[in-house]
């Protein structure tokens, strides 16, 4: 096409309008599996009210939501369910990974817990904490609103760019296994894989 429409003032204004509308009405899909789910409920309650920021209702049907908040540890039995709910959400959709367990597995580095939900589905904002305070959850919604304001488009072009997996490298590539027993308090070496007896 001879004219590059992406910088057209009409389309950028439409983008701005769409971003404004979408960011101020992010309806969350609360995927609360564990303790962070309680803090998510607290964030939705009257004292720290997430509805002030547009998250008016926590719809439990994924078809009616545009923001998935993964709150809590996700076990390997739950992950296919999580992926299925994510796929059922209509575009545009965003994901907030709430708490240490959803972001990285948290304290549960075991055979059953997925070490970070971003290994298997796309995440936009991470919230650290165990559990994060409701104010942190609200801050993450505000951060997501900033992200939508800066990078959002009417037709969702920014999503098509994210083709690569956003997961961290597998642990086995990052750290070499060692022979000695590492004490659990050593944060720098605590994630080494040990093969014998452990």
């Amino acid at each position, binding site marked *: 096409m001879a004219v590059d429409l992406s910088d057209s003032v009409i389309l950028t204004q439409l983008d701005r309008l769409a971003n404004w509308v979408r960011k101020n009405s992010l309806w969350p899909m609360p995927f609360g599996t564990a303790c962070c789910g309680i803090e998510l409920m607290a964030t939705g309650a009257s004292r720290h009210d997430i509805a002030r920021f547009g998250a008016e209702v926590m719809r439990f049907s994924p078809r009616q939501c545009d923001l998935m908040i993964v709150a809590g540890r996700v076990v390997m039995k739950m992950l*296919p369910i999580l*992926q299925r709910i994510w*796929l059922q959400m209509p575009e545009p959709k965003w994901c907030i990974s709430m708490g240490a367990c959803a972001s990285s597995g948290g304290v549960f580095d075991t*055979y*059953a817990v997925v070490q970070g939900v971003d290994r298997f589905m796309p995440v936009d904002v991470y919230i650290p904490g165990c559990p994060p305070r409701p104010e942190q959850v609200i801050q993450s919604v505000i951060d997501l609103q900033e992200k939508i304001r800066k990078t959002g488009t009417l037709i969702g072009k920014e999503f098509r760019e994210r083709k690569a997996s956003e997961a961290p490298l597998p642990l086995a590539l990052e750290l070499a296994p060692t022979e000695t027993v590492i004490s659990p308090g050593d944060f720098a070496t605590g994630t080494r*894989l040990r093969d014998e*007896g452990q």
Partner: protein
Amino acid sequence: MKHEDIVAHLKSRFGADGFATSEFRDNRRIIAQPSNLFAVLASLRGECGFDSLIDITAVDYLYYPNAKDRFGVVYALLDSVSGERIYVKTYLNEPELAVRSACSLWQGADWMEREVYDMYGIVFEGHPDLRRILMPEEFTAFPLRKDYPLRGRGERHNFPVLTRAEG
């Protein structure tokens, strides 16, 4: 029933060699053979008044010093009238990792035995629906055995990846 009466009753039923007892403070244990375990449990329930099954669990003695058998299965019983507790234990070794299911005595043994099967691989014969309860059905290993690594063997990260462009 008082503990001495319980032991005397079991001795009259199973003979003095049919089981062993041990005790520490107020923790009293009956150590039965896998062959007469169900009968001991039935006798404790029917005749000695232990009407409540509190828990069934198992122990893996693989790296335990001075262990003679690999697995132990522990039943915790409670007499709801007198408040007495007693623990019944048997030892199992591979390859005969099977005991008779206690579901016909206590309905609550159903899920407890499923959990022991899921985590240790001990089969309960006569169980109405013995399948995994905590791990997914396709999981092949028994995680709480001592030779299974804490972080697993890669099963937890063996899933398809959804990227934002396609999902």
